[in-house]
């Protein structure tokens, strides 16, 4: 069964007297271990959609099932618990906790969100530190490393809980293009190793090429779906 099933999702924002239709009937399915991207111009609804999939917001209409869970039914606390156990997040501004070292930032979800015993915790962190190539920077604080390095740490933090799905809203927007490629390729490699689904948004055409599935958004609607290596529709 698909990891994500979106059926005719709508999302309206009320701004004063005006209703903004950010998403107007979006439907799609995403299989486990996919590496897909939502692309589209500014204001097309990428962030809105990722927030819905990320269980950070609720659709106005339509159903959205993530990992067999109808996310519209979760209350605040259940949503938080769901995010903590099933999802990983990578942010445009990296959003590492400034008071924690590289190692501690990766450790954070295992301590504060899940409750993983120390031995396993250490093992997972070490493995990810190696995988993202940050083992030698482990004791540095976020303000002592570069943007690309920060995003590598953020990837490790998102993966350390073994989520089914990692969401990344414009993960490369604050990086130069060479670093952006490196980060996207790291994500792809992690998908290959761990079979974690990655969904990211971007409006950088060069980066889009790295995705295996591309959903094009315009004015809150999906206008094209491209699947590499075979299936491509509409």
């Amino acid at each position: 069964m698909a990891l994500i099933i979106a059926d005719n999702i709508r999302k309206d924002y009320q701004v004063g007297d005006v209703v903004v239709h950010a998403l107007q009937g979006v439907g799609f399915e995403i299989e486990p271990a996919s590496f897909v991207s939502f692309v589209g111009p500014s204001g097309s609804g990428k962030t809105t959609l990722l927030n819905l999939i990320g269980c950070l917001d609720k659709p106005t209409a339509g159903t959205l099932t993530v990992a067999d869970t109808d996310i519209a039914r979760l209350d605040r606390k259940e949503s938080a618990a769901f995010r903590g156990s099933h999802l990983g997040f990578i942010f445009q501004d990296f959003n590492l906790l400034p008071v924690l070292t590289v190692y501690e930032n990766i450790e954070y979800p295992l301590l504060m969100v899940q409750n993983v015993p120390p031995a396993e915790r250490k093992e997972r962190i070490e493995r990810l530190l190696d995988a993202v190539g940050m083992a030698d920077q482990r004791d540095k604080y976020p303000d002592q490393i570069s943007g690309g390095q920060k995003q590598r740490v953020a990837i490790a933090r998102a993966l350390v809980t073994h989520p089914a799905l990692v969401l990344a809203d414009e993960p490369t927007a604050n990086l130069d293009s060479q670093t952006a490629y490196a980060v996207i390729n790291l994500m792809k490699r992690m998908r290959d190793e761990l079979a974690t689904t990655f969904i990211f948004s971007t409006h950088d055409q060069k980066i889009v090429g790295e995705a295996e599935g591309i959903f094009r958004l315009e004015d809150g609607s999906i206008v094209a779906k491209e699947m590499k290596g075979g299936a491509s529709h509409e």
Partner: protein
Amino acid sequence: MNNLFKIAVRNLLRYKRRTLLTASLITIGVVFVLVFTSVTGSFKAMMIGQITDSMLGHLQVHRKGYVASIDNLPLNLNIKPKAYQKLTEALKAAPEIAAFSPRLKFGGMFSNFTETTNIRLNGIYPDREFQTVPLLTSRISDGKKTLSRGEIMIPTLLAKGLKIKVGDTVVVVATNVDGSVNGKQFVVSGILESATGPGGRDGYLHIEDAAEVLRMPEAEISEVAVRLKDFSRLPAAVRHLEGQLAGEVNKEGHPIFEVHSWEQLSPFFNIARMIDVMTFFIKIMLIAIVLISIMNVMIMAVYERIREIGTIAAIGTLPGRILSMFVIEGFCLGVLGAIIGDIVGSAIVLIINVIGIRFDFAQQKGLLLTTTLAPSDLLVISAIVIVVAVLASLQPAFKASRMEPIAALRHV
């Protein structure tokens, strides 16, 4: 839990100057309260000690109605020998009583053969009196610290006024209960410093001499001063004794005796009460300082860290965790202020003792203030600070825990 503390401490260290400023504000408050409680508490304890141990005793027993007219020292309200016998038995049976001393009080004329004035006198058994009010001897500024038959101790103001020295012969003249007058010569054996409160300017003589002056075949008793083994158990002792003596009634069925604690006998009790009220308000001020300063920093901390809150909320940190994260930060700040305050406050109290502050109270000059700081005071004040710090951070912490992750992440 450890990690919550680690994060809280690191966040506090992140804004070192602000943390230090807030902690010092709390420190100042704690120091102020500690020094104030210590100084006033010690002053109070010392004054109460002076009053109870140098004249009043911890509590007193009189014949019913005596205290109401104590200013006249009424001889007709003395306890008769038979009733005193019963009272003695009751007092001896009470386990909480360390010592008691019967007194025969009367007013009379006092003369050095050239000048005459009024005097209030206590007839006492010297040994028992000194056991019951052990500091009485410390008030003897001149002369010997004992009292024998034929001797009298007089208050210093009287001695000065009449230019009387130790060893001088004086005459005491008094009217007895029938209205006839009698006199007797005494040798001055000691000069007494004044003490604060009723009876602080009385003279002392042997109770058998007093009975002789008043022409009593057997000494009647005006009051019995009682010393307890444990002063802190005073209210219980008063209640117990009242219960014991309630059975002693006269022909009309009214109780014969009345029991008063020092608090009911000395006006200093009101001063002591006022000190307590002041201490209470100072503590309220401390609470206000801690409340405002902690709330202020915590509101600021939450505001500055909205995006961080959004991040940790997005990755699944439960609202309760976020709440405790900020509450623990306030808690740590409170602990920091309390600990520094305790250390500095204790140091200042110690310094006061080393320097040695002297003060005058009414007629008493150059009293040495020895301040003490009970560990329980430190604990109570620290606990107040910490509890208030936690309460003050609750509101900002709650706000942080209720934040919507998307809105918080969008915050710039």
